C-alpha cells in the first residue's frame, strides 16, 4: 500500500511539476450549466469572458489565459466535486471559476483548501460560502446585500406596511428573512410573509391574498424565467398595480426576462447591483463589446459577475507573474477596487465578496422602445449584510 501510494503521488506530482514548469499558459476551469434549463448562465458567462478578453487581451504580461468550460447543469455536489478534481489534477488548472448554485461551491471547498486553488464565484449568492475556504472570491452579490437596501429604501419613501411573497427555497427564504429583519428593526410593519412553492405557475390566489391586506408595497423574490412572467402579470391582473401598491423586488426584472415581461413590468421598482442601462463609459463599452460579438447578446448580472470575475483572475495572474502562488494571488485581490460596468466595486479584504452600490431602478421604456431598468437612486457601498463571521 505504502509503495503504491508513493508511486501515484510521485507520478501526479511530477506531471503537475511539468505543467508548472512550462506554464506560459494559465488555465482557468469554469464550472457552469451549459445544457439543460439553466444553460443561460453558461452562455452569459462565456460571452462576458469573451468580451473581457477582447477588451483586455488574451494574456497578461506574456502569460496566456485559457478558459476551459465544464458542464455542471444543476445543483449537483457530486458532479461539482469530480469535475473540479479532474480540472485540477488532470487538466492542471490554476484557477476555478463559475459556480451558479451554492451546494456546488460548498462541494469544492475542501478540494480547493487542500490543493490551494483560488476560485472565483460568478454567481452563487449565499453569504456563508466564502467562509468555507480562504481561496474563494466572489464577484456577484449576496442576497442580504441587495435585500437590506431595498428595505431601507422603502422606509425612506413612506412605505410602512409590506407583504412579502417569496419562492419557497433557499435564496427566497434568505431574501425574505433579511428584508423582514431590516424592515421591522427600523419600524416598518410586515403584514404577512407568504412563501409560494417553487414550481407555482398560478399566482392569482397569492396576489389576491396580498391585495386584500392593503399593504403599501409587496416585496417579492422569484427565480428568473417563466414563473416571474406570470407573477408580474398577476400583479397587474389582480389590481394591485392599479391600487397603487408598490412592487419591490431584486432580480425579477433582470435583462434576459425583461422584454418578455412586456408592459406589465412598467413601473416595477427593484434594488439590484447591475442594470444593463447603467450610465457609465465602462458599462457602455462592455455592452457594446458584447453586442459586437453577438447582436442578440444581453448583459445581465450573470454577465457582469463573469466579466468582473475575469478581471479578478487577470489581477491574480498579474500579481503572481504567472507563477503558481495561490496565497499571493488571493492576497492581491483582497481589498482590490476598480470601476466595473456595474459601477465602483471592491472585494472586501475579509470576506472576499463585493462591496458595491445597490441601485434602485424602475422599469421604463427607453428611446428605442425597449424596456430597461432605469436607475433613479443609489445606496452606496453596501457591504454583505449577511456576513456573520
Amino acid at each position, binding site marked *: 500500500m505504502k509503495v503504491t501510494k508513493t508511486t501515484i503521488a510521485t507520478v501526479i506530482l511530477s506531471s503537475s511539476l511539468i505543467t508548472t514548469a512550462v506554464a506560459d499558459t494559465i488555465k482557468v476551469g469554469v464550472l457552469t450549466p451549459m445544457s439543460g434549463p439553466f444553460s443561460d448562465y453558461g452562455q452569459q458567462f462565456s460571452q462576458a469572458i469573451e468580451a473581457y478578453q477582447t477588451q483586455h487581451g488574451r494574456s497578461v504580461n506574456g502569460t496566456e489565459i485559457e478558459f476551459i468550460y465544464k458542464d455542471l447543469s444543476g445543483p449537483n455536489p457530486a458532479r461539482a466535486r*469530480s469535475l473540479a*478534481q*479532474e480540472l485540477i*489534477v488532470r487538466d492542471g488548472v490554476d484557477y476555478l471559476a463559475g459556480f451558479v448554485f451554492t451546494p456546488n461551491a460548498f462541494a469544492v471547498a475542501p478540494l480547493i483548501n487542500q490543493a490551494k486553488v483560488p476560485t472565483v464565484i460568478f454567481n452563487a449568492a449565499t453569504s456563508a460560502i466564502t467562509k468555507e475556504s480562504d481561496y474563494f472570491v466572489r464577484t456577484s452579490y449576496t442576497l442580504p446585500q441587495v435585500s437590506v437596501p431595498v428595505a431601507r429604501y422603502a422606509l425612506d419613501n413612506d412605505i410602512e406596511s409590506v407583504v412579502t411573497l417569496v419562492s419557497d427555497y*433557499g435564496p427566497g427564504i434568505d431574501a425574505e428573512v433579511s428584508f423582514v429583519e431590516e424592515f421591522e428593526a427600523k419600524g416598518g410593519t410586515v403584514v404577512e410573509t407568504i412563501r409560494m412553492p417553487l414550481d407555482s405557475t398560478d399566482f392569482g390566489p397569492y396576489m389576491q391574498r396580498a391585495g386584500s391586506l392593503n399593504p403599501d408595497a409587496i416585496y417579492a423574490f422569484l427565480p428568473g424565467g417563466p414563473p416571474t412572467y406570470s407573477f408580474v402579470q398577476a400583479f397587474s391582473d389582480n389590481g394591485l398595480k392599479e391600487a397603487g401598491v408598490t412592487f419591490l423586488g431584486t432580480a425579477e426584472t433582470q435583462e434576459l426576462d425583461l422584454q418578455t415581461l412586456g408592459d406589465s413590468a412598467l413601473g416595477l421598482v427593484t434594488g439590484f447591483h447591475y442594470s444593463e442601462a447603467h450610465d457609465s463609459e465602462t458599462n457602455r463599452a462592455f455592452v457594446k463589446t458584447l453586442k459586437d460579438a453577438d447582436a442578440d447578446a444581453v448583459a445581465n448580472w450573470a454577465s457582469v459577475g463573469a466579466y468582473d470575475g475575469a478581471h479578478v483572475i487577470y489581477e491574480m495572474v498579474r500579481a503572481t507573474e504567472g507563477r503558481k502562488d495561490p496565497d499571493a494571488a488571493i492576497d492581491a485581490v483582497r481589498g482590490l477596487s476598480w470601476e466595473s460596468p456595474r459601477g465602483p466595486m471592491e472585494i472586501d479584504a475579509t470576506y472576499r465578496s463585493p462591496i458595491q452600490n445597490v441601485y434602485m431602478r424602475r422599469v421604463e421604456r427607453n428611446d428605442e422602445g425597449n424596456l430597461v431598468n432605469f436607475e433613479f437612486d443609489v445606496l452606496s457601498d453596501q457591504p454583505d449584510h449577511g456576513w456573520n463571521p
Partner: protein
Amino acid sequence: MTQTTVKPSLALGTLHTGRLPIPELIALVVGLGCFFAFPSNLGFMTEIVIMILLVLSLDLLLGYTGIASLGQAAMFGGGAYCAGLFALHIHNDPLLGLIMAALFGGLMAGVSGLLFLRAHGLSFIILTIAFGSLTFAVANQLNWLTGGDDGLYGYIMAPLFGAFEFDFFGRTGFLYSLGILLVVFYGLRRLVNSPFGLSAQGIREDRQRMTSLGFPVYRVMLMIYIIAGAIAGIAGALSAQTIQVVGLQSLSFTMSAEALVMLILGGTGRLYGAVIGTVVFMVVHHYAADLDPSTWMLVIGLMLIAVVLFLPKGMVQLVDMTRNKVSRLNGGAGHDNSK
C-alpha cells in the same frame, strides 16, 4: 454468470464454500486497474461506484422481484442526509455512519413499503414518485436541519479505520466505495440465488401463482423492498461521506429516473446488467460532455434509442448472444434468457 446456473435447492451460504467469488474478484481487479490507470479521475469513478450501488438496489426490486419504482432516490437521499447529519452531530466515523444510513434507508423503505406494497403496477409507481416528492419537500422545508437549497455541509469525516484520511485525490474515497460495492454485490449475489431470492423471482414471474402456492408474497416483497432501501441508503451515505456535501438533488425525481434508465440500459434481472448499464451511461455522459458541454444530451438520447431498438433487453443481451453462440457450438442446451 453463476446465478443462472444455480439450482433452486441451493441454500443461502453454500455458494461460498469451496468456490471462489469469481465475479467479485473480477470486479476487484477491474476496479484496482482503473484506480491505477486513471489516478486523476478518481472522483468520477467514485461517482460511478456509488451509482452502481443505487442501480443494484433498483435491480433487486425491478429485475428480481418485478417491483418497478421511481422513488428510489428517497432512500438514497435519506441515507445521504442521515450519514451527513450523523457525522455533523454525533460521530464522524465513516463505517458507523454507513451502518446508520443503511438502517435509515431500510426504515424508510419499511415504513413506506408497508403501505405502498398493497398497491400494484402503475399505482405503486405513482406512490413511489409521490414518496420521493414528499421527502424532497420535507428536506426543503427542514431548512434548519438539512440546509435546504444550500445543502448540508461543514462536517469532516474521520479517517477510515482510523488510518486512511479522505484525501483530495479521492483515493481513500474510491477504495472505500469499491470495497463496500464488492461486499454488497457479494451479498446480493447470494441473496438472489437463495431460496428467498428465488421466491422473489417467482413473484416477478407470476405473483398470483406464488400466492396460491402459499408463499407469503407480501412479506417477501416487503423484505426485498427494505433490503433495496438499505442498499440505496448505503449508496447515499457513501456519496455524503466522499463529497462532504449533501444536496437536495440527491432526493430528486431525476435521480430516481436516471437510475432506472441506467438499469434498463444495462438490462434488468442480472446484477452485472446494473453494473454495465451504469458504467456505460456515466462514461458516455462524461466524455460526451467533455467533448461538447452544451449538446452532449443528444449523444445520450441517441444511445438510449439505439439500445432500446436493437437490444430491448439491455446490454446484457450482447453477453447472452455471444454465450448462446458458444454453447450452441459446444452442443450445449443454451440458457434460459428470460431471467
